[in-house]
């Protein structure tokens, strides 16, 4: 059996998105900046896509949608713009969390080198940031609060409307990395007081290499990519209309079917969570309820995540791990460590990210095989016996 349970890493292109993509490649291949008919027909496709994206997140005006190469570029541009454009006003303080995607964290580090001061808030043990901590961190010098909509690793959904309200009240810009949230949980940039938002096409069955930066009118964007005057002069480069149109179609499809999809995906998620709960010395990471519909993140003490992952891969199950061994840097997940998960437990973590195409049968298969690989690798562990005999203390 082949089970794809790594949709937070990337999704497969939907049939709808693929049709739009191919249609554009065949029939709307002009440069939208060209004045001839070919160009203008493509421009219409681009306008249409902008309108669709704006509607999906309830942006007031389609011109608040800027197409980028993906979520990372959108994150970079949002942070760099908010920081540098406010520096002259003496606003040199930025607030984020320690569980953000590296697109946020590494950009924040870059801004620190430019002289900005950054506060990294730690979430509570359930992976959710305390709204009071956000309010307490804001000072007269704060230019921007950037807090992700939902976490990519352990799925916790952040209190975005509450944070938006605080930022509005205190006159601070609010950006959210909604890469994992878009098309999966409702987003309303106006009602939630979101000034800037990033999303990425391939996380909701759109193509890779295309994303969105939403920036409310009135916010000064600075270019990350210089060149031509595309995207109202804020993002140079010939516009990837086929990718953008396909992304917009996928986003619309996801938003239109959100309720029905979530009913199914949440049931699958909770079945998987429940099915793994009888494994001793294991824990669910992230809030059990306020979490992304498809996210299941478990830590298993005494085993290492890469071995679990490859053991499951041998059974045809695709998932991911926060283990140090799976990362290029050999550091365990900063997200799990950032929310206080012990390092041993971070090392033995697995993330399953389900979607509406997964089935109950697949979840049963995952449950069975996870039991098997955890038991296998615990039997190979040099310290599992000592833990079981009480000679060493269990961390979970």
């Amino acid at each position, binding site marked *: 059996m082949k089970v794809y349970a790594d949709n937070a890493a990337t999704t497969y292109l939907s049939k709808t998105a693929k049709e739009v993509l191919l249609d554009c490649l065949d029939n709307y291949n002009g440069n939208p900046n060209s004045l001839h008919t070919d160009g203008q027909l493509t421009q219409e496709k681009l306008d249409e896509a902008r309108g669709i994206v704006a509607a999906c997140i309830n942006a007031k005006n389609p011109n608040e949608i800027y197409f980028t190469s993906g979520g990372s570029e959108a994150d970079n541009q949002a942070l760099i713009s908010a920081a540098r454009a406010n520096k002259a006003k003496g606003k040199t303080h930025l607030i984020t969390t320690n569980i953000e995607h590296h697109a946020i964290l590494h950009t924040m580090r870059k801004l620190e080198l430019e002289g900005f001061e950054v506060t990294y808030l730690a979430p509570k043990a359930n992976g959710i940031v305390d709204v009071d901590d956000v309010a307490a961190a804001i000072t007269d010098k704060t230019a921007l609060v950037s807090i992700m909509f939902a976490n990519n690793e352990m799925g916790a959904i952040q209190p975005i409307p509450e944070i938006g309200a605080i930022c509005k009240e205190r006159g601070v810009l609010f950006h959210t990395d909604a890469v994992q949230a878009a098309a999966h949980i409702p987003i309303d940039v106006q009602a939630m007081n979101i000034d800037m938002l990033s999303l990425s096409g391939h996380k909701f069955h759109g193509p890779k290499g295309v994303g969105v930066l939403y920036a409310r009118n009135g916010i000064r964007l600075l270019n990350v990519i210089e060149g031509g005057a595309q995207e109202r002069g804020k993002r140079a480069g010939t516009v990837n209309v086929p990718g953008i149109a396909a992304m917009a179609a996928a986003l619309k499809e996801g938003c239109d079917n959100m309720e029905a999809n979530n009913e199914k995906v949440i049931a699958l998620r909770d079945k998987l969570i429940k099915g793994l709960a009888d494994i001793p010395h294991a824990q669910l990471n992230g809030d059990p309820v306020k979490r992304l519909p498809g996210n299941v993140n478990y830590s298993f003490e*005494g*085993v*290492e995540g*890469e*071995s679990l992952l*490859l053991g499951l891969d*041998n059974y045809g199950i695709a998932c991911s791990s926060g*283990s*140090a*061994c*799976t990362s*290029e840097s*050999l550091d*365990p997940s900063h997200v799990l460590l950032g929310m206080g998960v012990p*390092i*041993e437990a971070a*090392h033995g973590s697995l993330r399953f990210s389900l979607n509406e195409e997964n089935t109950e049968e697949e979840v049963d298969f995952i449950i069975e095989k996870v039991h098997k690989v955890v038991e296998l*690798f615990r039997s*190979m*562990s*040099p*310290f599992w016996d000592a833990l079981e005999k009480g000679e060493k203390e269990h961390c979970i």
Partner: protein
Amino acid sequence: MALYSDKVMDHFENPRNVGVIENADGVGEVGNPTCGDIMKMYLKIENDTIVDVKFKTFGCASAIATSSMATEIIKGKTIDEALELTNKAVVEALDGLPARKIHCSVLAEDAIKAALVDYFTKTGKEMPECLVGFEPHED
């Protein structure tokens, strides 16, 4: 190209010599501070020959595969021959490892050396020069 060679995957999926030797003549446990992997080697030694070897490893596929391959190489060899085993030889026997996983093979070499240090310490036999003052690699 896949992350791991077929040989690595074979030794990961079907590791040789997993287990514990009761009353082993030498036991060595080493850990890698970089990634948190831990390897434990058990040696049964008769007439300066490693007649049996078992391991237990907490770690990634390459940590398990290098443990397995290293035990396979030294089983039946004399102590002197086992001391000549380098992490490089283990990597070559596995048809290579990704650069960031080379430290796993160092762990396997160190685990064998640590087990031999334990053997010489326990038996009171004269420690070979190359093991005097042995310290596992920091990385």
